[in-house]
C-alpha cells in the first residue's frame, strides 16, 4: 500500500503526535483530540479526503481509561481512498470532543447521534440535541453498562403517560438476545419463543 505509506509519511512530519493505529483494512491513525480539527482540515484541503463518511465513537466499557474513542472515517473522491482517524476522549466521565461541523456540515447529525447514544459532548456544535431518543431521556443507550432491554422510565409525553398508565419498560428478553450463526445450534430450540414456552414442536405439551 504505497498510498498508505505516503499519507503516513507526510502526516508524521506535520503532526508529530500522530501515531499509527492497528487496522484490518484502511490506513488508520491515532490523533490527540485537541489536534483532530487541524488534522481533518489538513486531510480535507491538502490530501483531498473531501468526503466525511462517518463520525462515531467507541465505548471501551466502564473502568478502562481512556474509556471513549471518537472515530472519523474519510473518503477521497479524487483518489478513491479511505482513511480512519481516531482520538481518545480525555475525560472518562463526561467525555468531550471538538465539533467538526465547520469542516463538514454533514457532521452535524453524526455528532448529535454520537451524543444521543454515547453521551459525548461536541464542543462548538451549533445544535447539540438528541436525535433518536427523545429530549429528557435519562440514559445513553449505547454505553456498555446500559442493558439492551432498557431501563424502566417515563414515557416522553407526560399527558399520554397519565392517560394510558404506560411506561418505558425493560423489554422482556424471552431467552434472547438471539445471536447464532446458522448451523451452529438448533434454531428451533434456540429461538426466544421456544425458551418462552414450556412446549414446542419438539417437546410435548406437558399434561396439565
Amino acid at each position, binding site marked *: 500500500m504505497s498510498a498508505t505509506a505516503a499519507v503516513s509519511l507526510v502526516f508524521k512530519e506535520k503532526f508529530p503526535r500522530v501515531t499509527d493505529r492497528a487496522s484490518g483494512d484502511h490506513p488508520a491513525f491515532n490523533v490527540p483530540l485537541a489536534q483532530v480539527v487541524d488534522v481533518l482540515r489538513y486531510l480535507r484541503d491538502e490530501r483531498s479526503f473531501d468526503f466525511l463518511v462517518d463520525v462515531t465513537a467507541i465505548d471501551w466499557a466502564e473502568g478502562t481509561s481512556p474509556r471513549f474513542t471518537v472515530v472519523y472515517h474519510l473518503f477521497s473522491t479524487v483518489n478513491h481512498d479511505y482513511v480512519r482517524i481516531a482520538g481518545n476522549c480525555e475525560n472518562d466521565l463526561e467525555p468531550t470532543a471538538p465539533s467538526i461541523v465547520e469542516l463538514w456540515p454533514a457532521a452535524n447529525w453524526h455528532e448529535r447521534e454520537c451524543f444521543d447514544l454515547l453521551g459525548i459532548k461536541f464542543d462548538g456544535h451549533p445544535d447539540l440535541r438528541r436525535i433518536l431518543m427523545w429530549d429528557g431521556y435519562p440514559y445513553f443507550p449505547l454505553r456498555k453498562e446500559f442493558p439492551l432491554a432498557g431501563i424502566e422510565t417515563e414515557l416522553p*409525553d407526560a399527558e399520554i403517560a397519565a392517560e394510558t398508565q404506560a411506561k418505558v419498560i425493560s423489554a*422482556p428478553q424471552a431467552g434472547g438476545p438471539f445471536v447464532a450463526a446458522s448451523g451452529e445450534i438448533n434454531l428451533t430450540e434456540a429461538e426466544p419463543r421456544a425458551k418462552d414456552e414450556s412446549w414446542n414442536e419438539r417437546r410435548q405439551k406437558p399434561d396439565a
Partner: protein
Amino acid sequence: MVTPNTEFAYNSKIEGEVVVSRADAIINWIRTNSMWPMPMGLACCAIELMGAAASRFDIARFGAEVMRFSPRQSDCMIVAGTVTYKMASAVRRIYDQMAEPKWVIAMGACASTGGMYRSYATLQGVDRILPVDVYVSGCPPRPEALLDALMKLQQKVKREPSAKNLRSA
C-alpha cells in the same frame, strides 16, 4: 276466492317502501361496509398495507379503500409497523382525535408485541397505549392476512349493540 300467499320475498305492493329491521343491524351494516382506515404506517408493514389497497388485493372490496390521513375522518386505525416510544405519544394522540366509533387493527409482530425489537427504544405492543380489536401475525403479514383481519373486525362490529351505545353516548 282466497289465494294462498306464496311470496316470501319483499313485495312492494304489500309493504310499500318500508323495510323492517333492527336498528343494530342497519347501523352495523353501514359501519362494516364503510370502514375508513387511518393508515398508521410506521415501518415495512405499511408496504403490505399499500399492497392490500392496490389493485391485486383491493381492500375496496370490503369498503375500506378510503385511506384517510386525517384522524377526524377515519374509523379504523391500522397500526402497521414498529412503534417506538418516541412515536407512541403521537400514535395515541392521533387515536384520541379519531371520532367514535373507532377500532384498531395491530398489523404485524411489531405492532402486536414489539416483535423482534426487544429493546430500549420500542414499545412492546401497541396494546399498551391503545385498545386493540384485531391482531395480525406476520412479519410483515401478507395482504390477505390484513383482509382477513378486516373481515374479522367486520364480524365483531356486526355483533355490537350499536343502537344502545348511541343512546348511552
